[in-house]
């Protein structure tokens, strides 16, 4: 079976960062309707084995293409760039990160009264993320180094957003 096929080929679309998520979801379901092991519930072991492998690949592909950050990393990998664990980052960006974190801690100290500010903070952070995604789109594939830097920054912001979520849960006592 052609498990080497890349995820863009599997979903029959041009490689690129812009993905119509609604269409992707529909394509995902069409693919799974063909390959899912349930289609072979009374089939032979061979059919079940191949179905499981293909369905796993479709799931992985969908998961990768669905998430902007995973998609960006995957695109870089397709261009033979491996993401580093401890990248060197622009000092300006790091300074901004420290400031954002301090702001978040202040909001956390305010307890429930900080919730409206936390919502604003989230919107602001998401706007930063959208800017970085635009940076990636502008740089890929012509300028891979810039695209790579954008991904590292996106990772930072994603981490920050998940901390915003944890903080909100803490405040609301979920």
């Amino acid at each position: 079976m052609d498990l080497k096929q890349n995820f863009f080929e599997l979903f029959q679309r041009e490689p690129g960062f812009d993905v119509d998520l609604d269409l992707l979801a529909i394509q995902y379901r069409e693919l799974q309707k063909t390959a899912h092991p349930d289609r072979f519930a009374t089939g032979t072991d061979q059919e079940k084995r191949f179905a499981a492998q293909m369905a796993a690949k479709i799931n992985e592909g969908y998961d990768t293409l669905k998430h902007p950050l995973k998609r960006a990393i995957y695109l870089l990998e397709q261009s033979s760039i491996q993401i580093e664990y401890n990248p060197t980052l622009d000092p300006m960006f790091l300074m901004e990160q420290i400031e954002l974190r301090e702001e978040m801690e202040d909001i956390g100290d305010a307890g429930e009264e900080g919730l409206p500010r936390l919502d604003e903070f989230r919107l602001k952070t998401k706007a930063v993320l959208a800017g970085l995604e635009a940076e990636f789109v502008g740089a890929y594939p012509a300028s891979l180094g810039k695209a790579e830097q954008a991904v590292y920054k996106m990772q930072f912001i994603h981490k920050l957003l998940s901390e915003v979520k944890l903080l909100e849960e803490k405040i609301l006592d979920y």
Partner: protein
Amino acid sequence: MALLQITEPGQALDPHQRKRAAGIDLGTTNSLIASYRGGELMTLPDLDGEHLLPSVVRYLSGGGIEVGKVALTNARQDSINTVSSVKRLMGRGVEDVRTLGEQLPNTFIVDEDGGMPLIEVAGGQRVSPVEVSASILKALANRAEASLAGALDGVVITVPAYFDDAQRQATKDAARLANLNVLRLLNEPTAAAVAYGLDSGAEGVVAIYDLGGGTFDISLLRLNQGVFEVLATGGDSALGGDDFDQAIAEWIISESGYTEKISVQQFRGLMTDARAIKEQLSTADSVAVNIQEQGLTYSSTLTRDAFNDLVAPLIARSVKACRRAVRDAEVALDDIFSVVLVGGSTRVPAVVDAVGQFFHCQPLNSIDPDRVVALGAAIQANVLVGNKSDDEMLLLDVLPLSLGLETIGGLAEKVIHRNTAIPVSKAQEFTTYKDGQTAMLIHVVQGERELVSDCRSLARFELRGIPPMVAGAAKIGVLFQVDADGLLSVSATELGSGVQAHVEVKPSYGLSETEITTMLKASFEYAAQDVEARSLTEARVDAERVKDAVINALSIDGERLLTLEERAAIQARIDALDAVMDSTRGRDITNHMETLAKATDEFAARRMDDSVRSALSGKSLAEVER
């Protein structure tokens, strides 16, 4: 005598082609089996007309067993030989059973080498939780086979959405032991959604609120064009209708002014009284309370409003879990278009109100909440067994709990995160800790916590023969594969030398393959030649199935996807298999079948690629979007 059934002209299905399939809800307190009978979907009753089979098995000193109501009736006088709530023990290890065991009347035997805990019953017999469940499954299957007049071709068994690998594996083992062909393990909430036909036409997110006797589960599913995705599950494993009863019982004790210590018998009596009061309040506005439990007397009325106040904190706990699940699913409350009620405790009006209020929609409760899961499972079984040819329904599930490995310092490194769609396979690289290290212990765990000791241990195996290198130089690739039932297998390879180790993850307290075979043989009580005859018949049936599948595939795609030579090579294998089909040696038939299967691997792979490719192409975008 049963009346002969005649189908409508033109709708008649070849009776030899229509297969018998059933859905089984293997519950903690009660179990059910459902199927299509005479074209109608129903839960199947026993000879006394009872649909619910109490999940209770009693072991008699003579070696026989009682299952269901009779076992439940006799349980009080013979509790030590009666096993109930066995679902709580499925796939559980020694430690869990020590905790649970204190609440259960049975005697547990724990193997020295950490094997599966066994229950000691009458006559010195020792039974495993898997065997107890198998007895319940067999009783249900017998009921279905009598009702459907023939052996079952396949079953779908439901499990809680949060069941881990060990619990799912144990459930599947029980089915094998009961000689049932499991088409799929299905999550209970998914089955409930299927029962309401939410797969047809509906699009959006649906919540399944399942409040049983002792547990509460909330699940969020996304439905789109017949596909169900489990988005999130949550709940409270210590919240259920029994807590409602207890709230009433405690109210009675406090109101009665009874000051002495409440005995176990008194409390048991009070719980039974409380339950009756609760059930009446589902329809009545107030109920007369007249209690006489060995010295504790109390007479009053309990209004529904007062009852609602008593249970409000309990219902609030369930709503909190709902909020959490909505969050986990990353959906807005407005996206949820429907809520399905499951479990007997959802008959309480205050529950219906609270659920409706939280989700802003009228909860669905027109199907008996005790039966809805079994009915949904039967619908799915009917599809999977092939009785509904053009059906588009596809149930996509997710992994309920993260899977990972133990790393240095007793930390759990997650390899596959919870809520990942299954089937899934994922590879991760690890390395050695010390210079010259030649072996590595692979410890597979499941759970969300950081420390291995807080997660469930699924399996341990060793990768040996790693070439000695400096610490951190070896690259060990560990591959996790999870199938559509949520069952895991793991393999590890040293990438430099290709040294390999592989395990089907059989939890250390599961049954080994040999144990299952031995038990199966023992349960048939066949003489040796009968076993041989049986395995020969099975080999022939399997071989016929593989052959038919290949011939069918050849006729559809042979010319398109294979060269003339390739087709000839496969045909030669088919002929070779045909030649040994009459052999009396099962091994011969099986060998040729395996050769044929291997020879068609490439063909099967091309067919899979081809069908996946054509799933999207050949259709215009507009068509796909429709």
